[in-house]
């Protein structure tokens, strides 16, 4: 009787240099077979220069390879059907200069867009009229509305994103984190489709 091996591919694997990947690097396995360690040490794929920085290893390749080497086992796939291997040879830290430049860019950009927005919607006029409706006095510069408005603007953004610098307001993921997660998920989906050699044939 064939022994069953349950195979669960790792979703993402980060690799520092070009070297051979064993089954253990790419997947988790569970089996009652005595060959477990031998299985885990099986080399599956050798990452080389021509892979550039992303390789997708399809579970089919692994199953195909293992079937040939170990005829007495039966492999059952659980979990994701492929592993994305990322090779970053130099794990670089973003320079503080670059971050400052981006910071300044976003700062000025945000300031300018909000000013243009206020002009676009004639907020000054609306606030003047509102000042008249509420207090009965004409006021060209209704600062009593405008300054609290400006502070509230920042508060609203903080509330929406659930972040005040590094401190979180509650435990739920903020829309920003969900957005970054979705973006990463979409990238992975694209990669697993276009970088997977099995799909190419």
């Amino acid at each position, binding site marked *: 009787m064939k022994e069953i091996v349950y195979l669960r591919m790792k979703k993402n694997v980060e690799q520092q240099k070009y070297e051979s990947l064993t089954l253990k690097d790419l997947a988790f396995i569970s089996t009652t077979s005595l060959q477990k360690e031998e299985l885990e040490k099986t080399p599956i794929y050798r990452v080389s220069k021509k892979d550039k920085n992303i390789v997708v290893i399809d579970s089919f390749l692994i199953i195909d390879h293992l079937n040939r080497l170990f005829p007495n086992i039966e492999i059952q796939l659980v979990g994701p059907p492929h592993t994305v291997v990322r090779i970053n040879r130099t794990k*670089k830290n*973003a320079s503080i200069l*670059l*971050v400052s430049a*981006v*910071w*300044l860019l*976003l*700062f*000025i*950009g*945000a*300031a300018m867009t*909000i*000013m243009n*927005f*206020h002009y676009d919607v004639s907020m*000054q006029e609306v606030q003047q*009229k*509102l*000042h*008249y*409706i*509420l*207090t*009965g006095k004409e006021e060209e*510069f*209704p*600062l*009593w*509305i*405008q*300054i*609290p*408005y*400006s*502070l*509230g*603007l*920042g*508060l*609203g*953004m*903080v*509330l*929406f*994103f*659930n972040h005040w*610098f*590094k401190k979180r*307001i*509650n435990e739920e993921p903020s*829309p*920003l984190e969900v*957005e*970054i997660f*979705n*973006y*990463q998920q979409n*990238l992975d989906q694209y990669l697993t489709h276009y970088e997977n050699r099995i799909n190419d044939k």
Partner: protein
Amino acid sequence: MISNFLIIGVEIVVGFAGGLAVGAGFVAFLTLLGIIPRLIQLTRSEAYIKVYTACIIIGSIFGTFLSFTNVTWNHPELLLIIWGVLHGIFNGMLAAALTEVINVFPILSKRIGIDDKIVWLFMAIVFGKITGSLFQWTFFVR
């Protein structure tokens, strides 16, 4: 006389149709940006969705009334402060939601590889908005 009635009739139809389109568009915009779900999530008040819906509708109608009326109430300036803060928070959420919708942050974090400092970039936008707004009201328009 009859043509007068006709013109009024046309006006009613035009006004009503315009209001319908703007109202539907406004609600669609709010829904798209997901501000209401976000507020519900923050306050854990899923049970009150109907109340919030009613709030939006009544608020819109009240705003329409304010834009076309000429009344004036003699309220103290404290009311203006409250009004300003609430307006600001709402607009801030709108602005934050827009930044999110156009995916600025995920792409920025990918391009320059600063996943862990993304919150600082976000604070840049927050302070940029506050500064821009204060600058406009206290210097720029004067």
